[in-house]
């Protein structure tokens, strides 16, 4: 979907490396800040942390601009930075969990762990869609990380398996088999949530 811009990425990266061109950096950020933030939100299940992680990603892109391999693709390099930051964040949470449900997100519209809008289900189609989206986000943050990264990059960001393999440093076949396993597990998680949801939630 963003294929036509690909040449532009490497050009902008060249200008950033050689001329410290702020405009080039702005171009890259303009193009990639939203996708990176979206990836981080799905990886860590928290839109606020996703903003921080996205900013950290670009801070690192800038700081490490001279170590970018000019033979490679900018986006692959950038995704790797972002995914690694997400993994670090999740590992840090496992060591020092901030809450019983570290992915739960308090007030304004993030991922919640107590199920979607369970107290008053709305009959409208729009509300049903929002609810379904929340079920999906819930299932995603419960999916083991090795599957989550592949599913998010392939299904939501539209990357090809070969690029995902390069980002994660795994063989392409492994990326594909993780995708299949990830989809199977997501199916189970979604069905499990439904069964749990049908019984109703404890306050």
């Amino acid at each position, binding site marked *: 979907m963003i294929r036509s811009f690909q040449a532009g990425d490497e050009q902008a990266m060249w200008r950033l490396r050689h001329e410290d061109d702020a405009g080039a950096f702005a171009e890259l950020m303009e193009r990639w800040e939203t996708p990176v933030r979206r990836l981080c939100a799905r990886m860590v299940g928290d839109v606020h942390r996703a903003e921080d992680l996205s900013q950290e990603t670009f801070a690192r892109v800038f700081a490490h601009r001279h170590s970018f391999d000019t033979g490679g693709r900018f986006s692959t390099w950038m995704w790797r930075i972002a995914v690694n930051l997400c993994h670090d964040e999740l590992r840090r949470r496992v060591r020092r969990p901030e809450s019983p449900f570290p992915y739960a997100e308090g007030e304004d519209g993030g991922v919640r762990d107590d199920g979607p809008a369970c107290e008053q289900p709305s009959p409208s189609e729009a509300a049903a869609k929002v609810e379904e989206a929340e*079920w999906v986000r819930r299932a995603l943050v419960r999916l083991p990380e090795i599957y989550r990264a592949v599913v998010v990059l392939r299904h939501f960001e539209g990357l090809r398996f070969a690029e995902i393999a390069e980002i994660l440093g795994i063989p392409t076949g492994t990326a594909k088999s993780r995708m299949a396993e990830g989809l199977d597990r997501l199916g189970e998680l979604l069905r499990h949530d439904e069964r749990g949801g049908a019984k109703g939630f404890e306050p």
Partner: protein
Amino acid sequence: MKHPGNEEWMSYLYDECDTADRQRLDAHAAVCGECTARLAGWRGVTARLDADRETPAGAGRRFGRRLPIARWLAAAALLAAGIGLGRWGTVSRTDVRHELEEARVQWTLQARADRAAADREIVESVRALAAREQEWMEDARHEWATARAVDHRAIQTALRGIEARSTTDTVALHAGLLRLAQETGNGFEQTEGHLQQLAGYRPDNSPANEQPPR
């Protein structure tokens, strides 16, 4: 029947295989209920995942919460000036956007420094406040001491006034009481005399033990 593996089905599902592979897999699925069921299962999951694609969490949030407002206002003012003065010919949209993005980049890189500076500022202002409060306390204490001294003098004066007045009053009262006592004494003696006169009264023209006249 040899079933295609997960890897092949994933390429098929995400449209990454070539035409020959696609035809081969289509043909297999047409005759294999097991693989058709698995494919249907995966398609069911990906269809459900798409619900989150339509309403991704925080999709509408373009910028972070903690961007410095002042810097953005300055950039926005630049943008407004470009429009207001009709200078789009000289200030290009790209330039303005670069200004905006540059401000953002700078913020990203200096966020920690800014935060540290802000922290220092807060600490300093708290210290200044504490110092000023100390001054106020000193001033207040001094004022209070002065006021107390003034009050003390006033009270002393008043007390002395009361004392002097009460001495005079006591003397006057004593004199008054003495006078009253004397007068009362005199009056009492007079009254006693009257009573004795009344008790000893005998009318000269009436016999003793006679009924009193009606």
